[in-house]
């Protein structure tokens, strides 16, 4: 495999690994937790490095994962004092840990591979050069092995706890009564997010971790409401952004991570505009259709309500539509025309009558 292919494979694997827990972050309204975690894992990595002086040590990985979980607990601790609201708590915790990490790097580790640009963007292009060799056999790039491991872990986690996660996400109270321990589940999910963030961090940097975790699930959520569909769709979208982003970066000679993040945004914009049911375009068209249907219903209800009342003659005339319903004469004429065509209303000179079908429409409308 060429190193180019390897980079693409790494990007795809990491995108897939990020999208899986990202779906639950988006659904559980904790998307910004990924922002916090992806920044603070740096702290764990740096402290681990300063202790071991070895960038390859598994302790770094462990330290980073622990920092991620620590971040979540700190945010919740702050929130529980009731002195700070949740969003402000997130905004307080991660800058502190990230700041300490940045200073530690520039003070004590500036000469090694850790530098602040890599922190934000990762060094995907160099990932193929850091290889794992075991007894003389080249097993592949470290990032690929770690990424695949994390992808498997995430698949396993979600596969095993699918129904628990689903219930805890959509109905935490019910999940608790079933004895599913929402807190335990919450922290397991946060651990998974941390593990994923750490694995991805090395290759793509802290900002792209957020993009890969949040944007593909957000896009998928515009396309489907089924959890299972949303999961595989997010993975697909993540992988697609990663690959297209990589080629673009290659063609334009720019940052791979930045280009991948941009692509996740482009896909989202596409879904936002053109999603078959939820997109802006589809919604606008449906709105227009509904507006006419709704206006006819409104007309039916209006005529029905005033049938038999003392002001019947006045209210049930074409002129009243403008005067009473506050419709523009143009709009009123069009509604009337449609209603007549659909057999809802009969017109006799200056008097409107509801047909039998119109009566039914008026009665069913707003019955809920």
């Amino acid at each position, binding site marked *: 495999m060429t190193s180019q292919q390897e980079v693409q494979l790494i990007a795809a694997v990491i995108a897939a690994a990020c999208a899986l827990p990202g779906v639950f972050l988006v659904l559980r309204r904790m998307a910004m937790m990924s922002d916090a975690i992806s920044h603070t894992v740096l702290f764990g990595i740096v402290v681990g490095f300063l202790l071991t002086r070895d960038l390859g040590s598994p302790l770094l990985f462990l330290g980073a994962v622990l920092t991620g979980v620590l971040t979540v607990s700190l945010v919740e601790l702050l929130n529980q004092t009731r002195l700070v609201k949740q969003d402000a708590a997130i905004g307080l915790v991660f800058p502190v840990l990230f700041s300490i990490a940045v200073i530690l790097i520039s003070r004590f580790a500036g000469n090694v591979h850790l530098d602040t640009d890599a922190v934000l963007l990762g060094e995907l292009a160099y990932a193929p050069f850091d290889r794992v060799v075991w007894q003389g056999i080249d097993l592949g790039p470290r990032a690929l092995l770690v990424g695949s491991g994390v992808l498997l872990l995430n698949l396993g986690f979600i596969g095993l706890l699918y129904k628990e996660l689903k219930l805890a996400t959509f109905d935490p109270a019910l999940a608790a009564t079933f004895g599913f321990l929402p807190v335990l589940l919450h922290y397991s999910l946060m651990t998974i997010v941390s593990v994923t963030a750490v694995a991805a961090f090395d290759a793509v940097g802290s900002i792209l971790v957020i993009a890969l975790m949040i944007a593909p699930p957000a896009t998928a959520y515009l396309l489907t409401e089924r959890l299972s569909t949303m999961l595989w769709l997010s993975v697909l979208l993540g992988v697609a952004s990663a690959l297209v982003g990589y080629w673009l970066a290659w063609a334009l000679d720019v940052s791979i991570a930045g280009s991948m993040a941009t692509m996740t945004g482009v896909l989202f914009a596409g879904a936002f505009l053109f999603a078959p049911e939820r997109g802006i375009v589809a919604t606008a068209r449906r*709105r227009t259709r509904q507006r006419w249907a*709704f*206006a006819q219903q*409104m007309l039916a*209800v209006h005529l029905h*309500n005033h049938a038999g009342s003392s002001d019947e003659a006045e209210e049930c005339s074409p002129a009243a539509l403008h005067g*009473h319903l506050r419709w523009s004469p143009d709009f009123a004429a069009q509604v009337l025309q449609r209603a007549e065509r659909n057999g809802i209303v009969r017109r006799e000179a200056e008097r409107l009558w509801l047909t039998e079908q119109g009566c039914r429409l008026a009665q069913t409308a707003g019955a809920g």
Partner: protein
Amino acid sequence: MMYQPHQPHQPPPRPPAAPHAAVPAIAVSDLTVAYHEQPVLWDIDLHVPAGVLLAIVGPNGAGKTTLMKAMLGLVKPAAGQVAIFGGPYRQQRQRVGYVPQRGSVDWDFPTSVLDVVMMGRYGALGWFRRPGRNERDLAFTALQQVNMEAYAARQISQLSGGQQQRVFLARALVQAADIYLMDEPFQGVDAVTEHAIIELLRELRAQGKTVVVVHHDLQTVPEYFDWVTLLNVRRIAHGPMAEVFTEANLSHTYGGRTAAVPRR
């Protein structure tokens, strides 16, 4: 801007709102409101004469709060209109005081009781003018009316639910309006507050004011109010208590579930 600065210290003298004035205090005609093309209110017609205590009653999701918000111009109707003393809300807003649901704000906001009450004068103050001595006095008087003057300097997060509700009432009182619209003022308040509110409502009626209250507790409706609107997306019935508050109408409003309704 519409938010007008021309006001002197006190609202200008107004024609007394006589209970039998020809112009209704609130006239809702053919009002339809929809969220995302889903109707929440269908073709509502209501005439609220000046000087009544009106309860808006109906099951959850009946559109009670929406109706009130439409009266206040907070939601845009799909059809129909609301007239306040014969004019659109925009022109009559100085004659309307509003008491929103207590839970609609963050009570940990850094401000004092007196300050919140003074907010009721912001509309009359206009741009760039700060509340001064006159506003403080008005606010303090309003607090006395709800027996909260001892709490004037208190931070609002230190109030009980009932006290919060009374602060909101005082804020509406300080608007010196002719119509008061109150969204669930009895929701989750203590007995003392409930009593204080009902006393206040009666006092307002005695002054010829019109009070419209979104209310939840069917049992207390006939005791507290003299007019009632039964609402369930459509207007089920509307009129004086004795004519309208009947078993048949209630069962129609609640879809035959009245038996389960009167509970607190």
